[in-house]
């Protein structure tokens, strides 16, 4: 490729980005753009797959048949989201198997929230409400992300996520109308998940070095702190409607800013969890590794059978 061609391609790329239009897999793109996308989409896909575990933990114990069906369907949806996202990543030339191996080797991350345990069935509702709520804040802007397959996957995913969020909220509000014990369970669960949910948006902007480039490329559309604020503003009235107290003494409406003020998460805990010292990091990866290893013979059998079919 000549320098001229190169420059023309880069010009096209920049123009597409400028116009808030989509880059497609066959388009030329800068290596770092591609690498950033692979990292981000893979992390997102891994989060869906690892995220099946904390909620999956309660499928066999869901306390009504309706709730069992809802939870099983939700965990199934997460597997589906993982599928779309791995497929989007494959358009960038990296296979699902490669990505899985990077995850298992600890070379790619997943959302830190899934390193917290689910300690009661109520957590299913709280995860739906807060964690899916935070995910939606993160993801809705990604529907307009510059890379086509990622943006289109996000549109589909966001629709289902907001359905999950409503289901989570509905479970909690049903429980709040139940017994005193149930109300206490909801509060206890919210106490555990509130701060980790705020951490889902990543470190504060002044500690997030990659944000600027990702925004310039149209991969990211808002900063971490902007998204966090949006989430808090959205969630506080819902907490009031629910009748639960968010565990933050600094939480207060700021009429001047037109936003809620809120306290700062424990960023030391966030860093510890991200580097592997959360309550469940080891278990989550070990679970995935075990399922991957135990499934190897099945995948091999399917491949062998398919090859026989071709040669027959």
């Amino acid at each position, binding site marked *: 490729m000549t320098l001229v061609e190169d420059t023309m391609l880069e010009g096209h790329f920049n123009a597409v980005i400028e116009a808030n239009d989509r880059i497609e897999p066959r388009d030329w793109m800068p290596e770092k753009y591609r690498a950033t996308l692979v990292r981000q989409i893979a992390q997102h896909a891994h989060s869906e797959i690892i995220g099946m575990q904390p909620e999956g933990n309660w499928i066999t114990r869901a306390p009504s048949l309706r709730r069992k*069906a809802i939870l099983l369907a939700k965990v199934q949806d997460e597997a589906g989201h993982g599928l779309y996202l791995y497929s989007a990543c494959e358009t960038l030339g990296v296979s699902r198997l490669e990505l899985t191996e990077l995850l298992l080797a600890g070379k790619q991350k997943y959302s830190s929230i899934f390193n917290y345990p689910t300690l009661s069935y109520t957590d299913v509702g709280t995860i739906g409400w807060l964690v899916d709520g935070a995910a939606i804040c993160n993801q809705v802007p990604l529907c307009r992300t510059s890379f086509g397959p990622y943006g289109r996957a996000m549109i589909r995913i966001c629709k289902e996520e907001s359905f999950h969020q409503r289901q989570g909220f509905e479970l909690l509000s049903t429980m709040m109308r*139940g017994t005193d014990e149930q109300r206490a369970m909801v509060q206890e669960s919210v106490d555990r998940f509130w701060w980790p949910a705020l951490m889902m948006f990543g470190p504060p902007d002044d500690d997030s070095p990659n944000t600027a480039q990702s925004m310039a490329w149209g991969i990211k559309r808002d900063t971490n702190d902007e998204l966090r604020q949006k989430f808090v503003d959205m969630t506080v009235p819902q907490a009031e409607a629910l009748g639960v107290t968010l565990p933050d003494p600094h939480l207060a409406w700021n009429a001047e800013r037109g936003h809620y003020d809120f306290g700062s998460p424990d960023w030391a805990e966030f860093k510890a969890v991200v580097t592997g010292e959360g309550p469940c990091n080891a278990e989550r990866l070990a679970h995935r590794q075990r399922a991957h290893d135990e499934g190897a013979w*099945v995948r091999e059998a399917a491949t062998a059978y398919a090859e026989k079919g071709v040669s027959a």
Partner: protein
Amino acid sequence: AGALAAYCLMLGDDALVYANRLSEWASNAPDLEEDIALANTALDLLGQARLLLARAALADPGVVPQLPDGSPVPGDDALAFFRDDADFRNVRLVEPDNGDFAVTIVRLFLFATYRLALLDRLRLSSDRVLAAIAAKGVKEVTYHRDYAARWLVTLAKGTDESRRRTESAVRVVLPYWAELFDDHPIEVLMADQGVGVLPSSLRDEADDIVAQVFSAAELVRPEARRVGSVNGGTGRDGRHTEALSLMLAEMQSVARAHPAGQW
């Protein structure tokens, strides 16, 4: 009405217990596609269970466990979460641990083969609710059977390892097959009344399907052996495997801790 309720519990418990077992595959399957397919199967069966348990509760409220006054737990949930294992009426085939993927596939294939034959005939039930449940179920279970049959052939003809596991799975699961076609007095009564289906009348058709798929998989069906009865009874009489009470201890733990809970 008592007999109809008992009959609905039989068919409903088959679906409920098996759905719960299959749901354990979530996040554990060999690949994402299988995770999704097994969850789908569990969801379909869970749906059938809900309808059948609700029909049982309606047909005879006497079968529903008594809960404290004012309990908000509906009949189908009370049946699922507040009955002890000896009151469950499912066949024993659906109880044991999932085992590896080969055991799961063999069990699913046998279960779906039986249930499809059953539901297909149950569409003509004189009980219109049962007929409607069956009509919906036939579509679902047809898919389950095809899915399992495809995998059975794939595993049997895949690698040496997968063939070894498949043959071993057949030896593990097949002894539970004969019980599916025993005629329990309730089933005889319901068949006589045109409400239910006589299990023994399904045996030839079901064996035929097994023979076809085993032949496609080049599997030899091992000599017939059947899991013995307990004090003259089997699953339909509430005499189960040791696996069921362990499964229910887990499945019912949250519901029972909150008998007045709203979910």
